[in-house]
């Protein structure tokens, strides 16, 4: 109603009560708002909302699962809060520290979940109403071990994992006269193959010499040890696996076998597009990225094989967790949602087919989808390789200073490769820094 209407009504028939039209309209709108408010209140009593916080592409997977959830729970809405990878984890840290805006279900990347497990910020899923202990055996063992706390507590459920393999370009290898076995026999033979490839084709063996160091330091980790620290917090950087990793990386750089590019940069993407990278060590998801946006023009030219020297490693992985301080009224529903996403083979397989999210649930591994050829990989049945790798990956103990340690080691490797620093001295320097930091 505008002012003109109000004036017209004020000059209306005299037999009406001399009531102010403005007042009347206010009364009407008050009544209307009371009625609608009451309706909304009645609805709100019946409806519930489950808040799920996720990052790409887990958000896509959750989004795709909403229709199925609504079919089962028409009265429970899913509110999906999606942020970019780093923003999501910063937001989750802030939410956990302040106990505000906590979602009912939290998607967490493996890199972060260890820290949250250690601080006791997440519910122990062994306890009622979850009772996850028995069902945890249905998942890939290493993925469960990564979220097992010091007293056996289980803080998250794995949903996808990133078993790693070596991807290589058959056309480039053929030109250089290099065979798949030359790449995988040993790390030394892998570097030798790279020298042949560079000489014959000009293509780089790998994007960055750091890639080889990353995997070689995983070989020979003793049970109970972490990548950089042992169970008592002593730095392990001067152990033989680091010497070997540094020597191999230095050899790669000296022979100019790496493109010196970092993953996810434009140079890195261009390298795949233009065929200047002959191999890449990466998680199962990498083939999907290559096929869809990185280098669809190279379809049919790539193949996958296990990493050199029988090494097994994982690249990333996602978990679902319930914050300890989350709304208690929603915890049972949150758990039901997590179970639907992780323990149901149809949901796990759908995420694998749509988003290349390799299932953490082992009972999916007998699905015929794993035996199907992958056209981008020239019809190779690479999912069998990834499945095999997943079952061989060993859990690695997480230390709170792992991120710092990785960076210190990377810095020392740069000094070795760029400035000719002695490997022994570099590792001693790294060890000293880590030892100081370990006690914090």
């Amino acid at each position, binding site marked *: 109603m505008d002012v003109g209407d109000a004036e017209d009504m004020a000059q209306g028939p005299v037999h009406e009560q001399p009531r102010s039209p403005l007042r009347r309209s206010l009364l009407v709108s008050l009544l209307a708002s009371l009625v609608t408010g009451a309706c909304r209140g009645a609805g709100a009593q019946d409806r519930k909302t489950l808040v799920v916080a996720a990052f790409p592409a887990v958000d896509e997977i959750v989004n795709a699962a909403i229709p199925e959830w609504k079919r089962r729970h028409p009265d429970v809405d899913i509110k999906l809060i999606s942020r970019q990878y780093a923003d999501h984890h910063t937001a989750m840290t802030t939410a956990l*520290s302040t106990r505000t805006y906590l979602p009912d279900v939290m998607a967490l990347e493996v890199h972060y979940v260890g820290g949250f497990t250690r601080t006791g910020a997440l519910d122990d899923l062994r306890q009622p109403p979850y009772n996850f202990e028995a069902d945890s055996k249905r998942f890939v063992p290493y993925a469960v071990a990564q979220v097992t706390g010091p007293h056996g507590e289980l803080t998250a459920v794995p949903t996808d994992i990133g078993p790693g393999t070596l991807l290589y370009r058959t056309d480039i290898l053929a030109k250089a006269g290099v065979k798949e076995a030359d790449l995988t026999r040993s790390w030394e033979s892998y570097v030798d193959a790279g020298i042949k490839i560079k000489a014959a084709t000009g293509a780089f063996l790998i994007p960055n010499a750091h890639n080889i160091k990353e995997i070689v330091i995983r070989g020979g980790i003793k049970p109970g040890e972490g990548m950089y620290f042992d169970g008592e917090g002593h730095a392990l950087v001067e152990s033989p696996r680091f010497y070997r990793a540094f020597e191999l990386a230095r050899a790669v750089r000296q022979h100019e076998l790496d493109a010196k590019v*970092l993953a996810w*940069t434009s140079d890195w993407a*261009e390298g795949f597009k233009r065929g200047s990278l002959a191999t890449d060590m990466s998680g199962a998801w990498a083939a999907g990225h290559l096929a869809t946006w990185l280098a669809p023009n190279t379809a049919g030219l790539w193949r996958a094989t296990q990493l050199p020297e029988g090494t097994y490693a994982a690249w990333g992985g996602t978990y679902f967790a319930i914050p300890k301080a989350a709304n208690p009224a929603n915890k049972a529903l949150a758990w039901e949602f997590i179970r639907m996403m992780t323990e149901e083979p149809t949901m796990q397989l759908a995420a694998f087919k749509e988003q290349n999210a390799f299932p953490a649930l082992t009972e999916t591994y007998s699905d015929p989808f794993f035996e199907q050829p992958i056209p981008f990989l020239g019809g190779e049945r690479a999912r069998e390789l990834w499945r095999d790798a997943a079952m061989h990956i060993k859990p690695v103990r997480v230390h709170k200073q792992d991120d710092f340690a990785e*960076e210190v080691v990377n*810095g020392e490797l740069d000094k070795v490769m760029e400035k000719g620093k002695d490997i022994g001295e570099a590792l001693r320097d790294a060890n000293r820094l880590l030892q100081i930091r370990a006690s*914090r």
Partner: protein
Amino acid sequence: MTNIMTSLSAKWRLPPAWTPYVLLSPFIVLFFAFGLFPLLFSLYLSFHSWEPSAGLGSMQYVGLSNFTFSLQDEWFWKSLKNTFWLAAASGIPQHLVAIPLACFIHAAIKRSRNLVVGLYFMPYITSTVAIAIMFTALFSTNFGIINLTIKELAQLPILGSILPQHPIDWTNNSDTIKPAIAIVIFWRYVGFNIVLYMAALQTIPADLYEAARMDGAGRLQQFWHITLPSLRPIMYFGVTLSVIGGLQLFEEPFILTMGNGGSDQAGMTAAVYLYRMAFDFNDFGAASAMSWLLFAVVAALTWLTHRVFHMRNSPT
């Protein structure tokens, strides 16, 4: 009706003594919430050890240990050294270029002066993220225009012996990351300083130059004996801003090094390091202690800048 309104307004009238506080309250509330509280909280945090995801209750008082750790931390000193290097390498050229350039624009360009100044000022008002992304593409090792230009120039007979034959790994090599960041910062802020000096130049009385010319002073002598001394107050202002800004460098190095300070942390400034201490290495206590140590350094250098300019000013 009018009487009711009058009595109501009299009842609810703000006492005159309160008026300024009520009018100021939006600022005061925002300042307390987003300015003073975080400041005091970081001071409180610097004396505590805190595992953030375990909640506020997990804070433990640790006395001065965060400060002693920070002062003994090699990376903190390395990041401070990087900060000084970058502040000097990007800050000093800004003024050395901006002063003569402002004088040139002031003297030689009349009709299109605003357009020229606007073009120089443009990088200052452009989003840092957009700038850093653009420079990341320019600095690209194999496909960036900077390396492609160097490669072409290296084909020329004389330049070929000076310029590198291999593409420069600008943002991944510890030797080149600092110059790369300094170039971006210089490019971004030189326009701001030009505007500052242009404003100051317009306040210098023209009769001073006339008198000097009549006394036979050349252009260089006029610049040296009239322009530069007259610019001293604005130079103090500009240098102070550069010192403070230089020591708090964050966005450009953060984005150009993909958030980790680059190879051998050569591009990691103190501000980037203390951010990483908190959000990457989960050590909020040490990060807060470092931020207060950095504050002490900024305050000391600002005071020093003041002293230097004050000493120069004192004889006049």
